[in-house]
């Protein structure tokens, strides 16, 4: 058996698997719809600066003469306390939320994957120590650790991402460790070890690539939760700073005005809800088809 055909053999079933999963994913109406909305949100995020009606209201301009106007043909979602177009800011907020969520999850993966792989592949004391540390982190209520870290780091969007990354990684460590333990004893790893491949190369060259798929799936399912957490931190004043059009910050600011200006809190909040909802629905659908117990073909 040549090397390339080996790769082909391992890739082929994977491609079939992906195709099958996509097919199953799209069979459920709710999941299909949410996949559509997620794609739409992604496109909105990319195009945001070009499609909003009042790009100047994002960062650089205030228009207080028009403050707190209700929704109208000119301002679809009304205006905020400095007369800025809420519609433009909510649309642009998509970009901020998706971007920060991706970075935060990426950060968590960056910490979580190597630790989990090392723990799973090495075993013994190293495994024990890493997993106990993981347990400790997992025993904080999820939002609490992020709040505590963000509070101590000081308020900024970067620190909020950092706080989430630091409080989220143990989930991935645990997941990848489980995978790594099962792969550790497989033939190709044994073979690599037998021919004297250094442990670092075994971990990152053989083990990680072979157990990363479920982690990536899990991470994409977590995006919704991360968006919600970022919004919550911003709401507490621990995330985005004004005048950044971050949804949580907008809802937070609207607290002073919402009893007289309902539109100010409704629209950014709705944006958080819809975005988190579609990500969660998609994640739910993914879980359903990937879990052999509930999978029905």
């Amino acid at each position, binding site marked *: 058996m040549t090397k390339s055909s080996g790769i082909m053999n391992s890739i082929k079933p994977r491609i079939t698997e992906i195709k099958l999963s996509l097919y199953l994913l799209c069979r459920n109406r709710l999941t299909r719809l949410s996949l559509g909305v997620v794609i739409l949100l992604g496109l909105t995020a990319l195009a945001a600066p070009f499609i909003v009606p009042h790009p100047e209201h994002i960062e650089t301009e205030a228009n207080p003469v028009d403050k707190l106007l209700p929704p109208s043909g000119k301002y679809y979602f009304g205006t905020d306390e400095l007369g800025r177009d809420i519609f433009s800011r909510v649309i642009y907020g998509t970009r901020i939320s998706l971007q920060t969520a991706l970075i935060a999850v990426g950060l968590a993966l960056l910490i979580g994957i190597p630790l989990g792989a090392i723990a799973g592949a090495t075993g013994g004391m190293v495994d024990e120590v890493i997993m106990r540390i993981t347990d400790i982190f997992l*025993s*904080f*209520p999820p*939002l609490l650790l992020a709040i505590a870290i963000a509070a101590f780091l000081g308020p900024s969007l970067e620190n909020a991402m950092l706080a989430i990354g630091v409080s989220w990684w143990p989930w991935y460590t645990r997941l990848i460790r489980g995978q790594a333990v099962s792969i550790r004893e497989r033939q190709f790893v044994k073979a690599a070890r037998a021919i004297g491949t250094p442990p670092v190369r075994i971990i990152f060259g053989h083990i990680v690539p072979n157990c990363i798929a479920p982690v990536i799936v899990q991470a994409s399912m977590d995006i919704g939760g991360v968006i919600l957490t970022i919004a*919550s931190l911003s*709401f507490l004043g621990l995330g985005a700073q004004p005048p950044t059009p971050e949804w949580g910050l907008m809802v937070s600011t609207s607290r002073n005005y919402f009893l007289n200006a309902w539109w100010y809190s409704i629209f950014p909040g709705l944006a958080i809800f819809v975005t988190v909802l579609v990500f969660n629905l998609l994640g739910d659908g993914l879980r359903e088809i990937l879990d052999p117990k*509930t999978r029905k073909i």
Partner: protein
Amino acid sequence: MRSFIVKRVLLGILVLFGVILITFVLTRVIPSNPAAQWVGQRATAEQIEAAKIELGLDKPLYVQLERYLADLAKGDLGRSLRSHQPVSAELKAYLPATIELVLVSTIVAVIIGIPLGVASAKRKDHMVDHVSRFFSVGAVSLPTFWVGMFLQLIFYRWLGLLPLGGQLSMGIKLTREIPHITGFLMFDSLITGDFVVFRDALAHIILPGITVALYPIGLVARMTRSALLEILDEDYIRAARSYGLPERMVLWSYALKNSLGPTATVVALSIGYTLVNTFLVEAIFSWPGIGSYISSAVISLDYPAIMGVTIFSACAYVVLNLVADVIIALDPRVRV
């Protein structure tokens, strides 16, 4: 069995120690000056220097940790930098309101969540399932703080039905003797038969209660659904069905009973979640609990107070986790 529980408890203790260590390290690496906070907004340099010594901040880090652990063992969480009062005493004053809110919303979550999960499992992939799945995923996706504001807008501003916030109307609070036995307002007023206070307290807890309950409703419903689905597939259920037992009986008394273990676990865990969720909700509803307490501590970087709440919540979470694990371990059906 016993060795499992012992091991689990030991792990719990290790975890708590880790939690304390992490919070301690967090508070010491941040750029702030607790001594300056201790003396207040317009301190002089000498006052800050004196406070540094008073608070033991001039000592090396390991001495500080040692001192902190020793105090902690005595139940002393240090003193708040703002009020100079013991954090443990302040927590005690704020805690009952939070517990009351968490309990009420957990009860609501169980009452709504379980039937929702059952309905959904019973008719998997039917309309009911879709609606309930949408609802339960929706409940988990809602930003709680926003829901709170939304409810205030509807029930206070537009309909004028319910109060905006607080635990009790000011008028009642000022003119009546408020019963105080356990510290749980609704419970105390109920057992003393003070229905004016009870009614008022009830009206005040509805909106925050619903807001906090949404998340656990979703969790409980989802968990019940998936646990039931798994069980409904098992042989003995099939057997029961094949004997022609009524479907309702199969579902409610055979299957549901057996899925209670995992659901109880989720309830225990969701209390931990709920506790932190109340932090966001309490601020909106002026609810006088530890959530309001930590919010104001965060604003002024009152680190002993932040640490106190963090350690307390983490402890509660660890204990609840432990309880959930032990329930599972004790339930012969669920044992893996």
